[in-house]
């Protein structure tokens, strides 16, 4: 007993070190996104409040740009309404049952915490479960892909950014429809990589990349970026670098898209497995 006590006294700092390091590493390894969402809940009081205040200041500084973007979006929407209503007048039919046909619902949120310089980036939004946000909803910046919701609390939610080593997205070339898998290589926050495009396909610099909608998260045809570099590697596939449309450094207001038929699609797909 005395020996044990002596031992503990002699190496007390080493034991403290081991215990604390154990706690930290346990926290680190037990699931990133889970803990991120847990953390939002725990830290709402202090850090999020502070970040919200800071982001208020920052969003004020960018009002001019956001205004012009909103105005152009308004114009586009007004145009589509115009097209829609005039068509209806022509056909003399109006379908009131929108619930039946509508697949995606849209809402918007503000980014209150964001990063681009880590290897695994997440951003925090100021809406949560109480406002109808759920896990696996798509996050876009206008029509440009930004991320996917991975955790929410009552009033906040966390989204995995496209700029995350763990992020995968099914994407295709707009010109010919061939699809591959999009990921981020952790190098530059303006560029991502498109894999699995075989070399017999014609790809040229400047081609647009869009989403496929296979994952039942993003609607089909959301924009991702343009091909900025193209390499033929030793394997059968191209190494395609994409310049992203979304500038994550100035991400402020985002759209959140929920797929109302997602569970139905997943259920059907699971039946086959």
């Amino acid at each position, binding site marked *: 007993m005395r020996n044990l006590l002596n031992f503990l006294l002699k190496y007390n700092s080493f034991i403290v*070190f081991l215990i*604390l390091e154990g706690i*930290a590493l346990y926290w680190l390894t037990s699931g990133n996104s889970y803990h*991120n969402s847990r*953390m939002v809940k725990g830290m709402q009081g202090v850090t999020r409040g502070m970040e919200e205040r800071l982001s208020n200041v920052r969003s004020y500084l960018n009002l001019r740009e956001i205004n012009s973007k909103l105005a152009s979006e308004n114009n586009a929407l007004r145009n589509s309404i115009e097209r829609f209503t005039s068509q209806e007048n022509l056909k003399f039919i109006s379908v009131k049952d929108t619930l039946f046909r509508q697949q995606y619902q849209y809402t918007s949120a503000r980014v209150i915490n964001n*990063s681009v*310089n880590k290897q695994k980036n997440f951003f925090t939004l100021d809406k949560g479960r109480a406002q109808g946000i759920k896990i696996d909803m798509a996050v876009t910046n206008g029509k440009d892909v930004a991320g996917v919701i991975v955790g929410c609390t009552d009033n906040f939610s*966390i989204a995995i950014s496209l700029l995350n080593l763990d992020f995968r997205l099914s994407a295709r070339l707009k010109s010919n429809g061939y699809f591959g898998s999009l990921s981020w290589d952790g190098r530059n926050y303006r560029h991502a990589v498109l894999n699995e495009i075989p070399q017999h396909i014609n790809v040229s610099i400047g081609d647009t990349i869009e989403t496929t909608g296979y994952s039942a998260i993003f609607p089909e045809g959301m924009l991702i970026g343009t091909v900025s570099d193209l390499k033929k590697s030793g394997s059968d596939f191209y190494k395609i670098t994409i310049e992203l449309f979304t500038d994550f450094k100035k991400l402020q207001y985002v759209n959140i898209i929920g797929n109302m038929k997602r569970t139905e699609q997943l259920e059907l797909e699971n039946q086959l497995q």
Partner: protein
Amino acid sequence: MINSILRFGVIIIILILFQVLVLNHIQFSGYVNPYVYIMIVLLLPSLTPSWLVLVISFLSGLVIDLFCGSPGMHASATLLAGFSRPYVLRLISPSDGYESGSNLSMAVYGVRWFFIYTLLIVLIHHTALFFLEVFRFADFFRTILRILLSSFFTIGFILLIEYYGKRR
């Protein structure tokens, strides 16, 4: 005693706020992010018991983690730096030893000593931090490059703060 506890409390709070409110939002070229809060570990007086160094470094890492949204990364890296601090101090001790109760500052032990001290601690901290961040050994040399670049900026910041902060 009370005075120095108060003084270091203020220094710790200022460094953490400076880190989370200013430096975390400055991103040189998307690659480099200086983590100057490691100065907390550097500046603790030489008489601080080693378990207290560990607890303080763990807690300050934890606070940074909460602000960065990264689970345990900064806590474990800062803890490692705090753990290696006594060994680093022994390794580079000046020929006439440390004066008991003095601050480990540039003013007392000279620019060259302080630079080596900072260099070693920052390298230990950044190496642990960046490898924990990617959590894989693929792209080994790119991680090394990120460590070196960020360490360079961190050390620069720390030396500047230490040099100009003397008149506080």
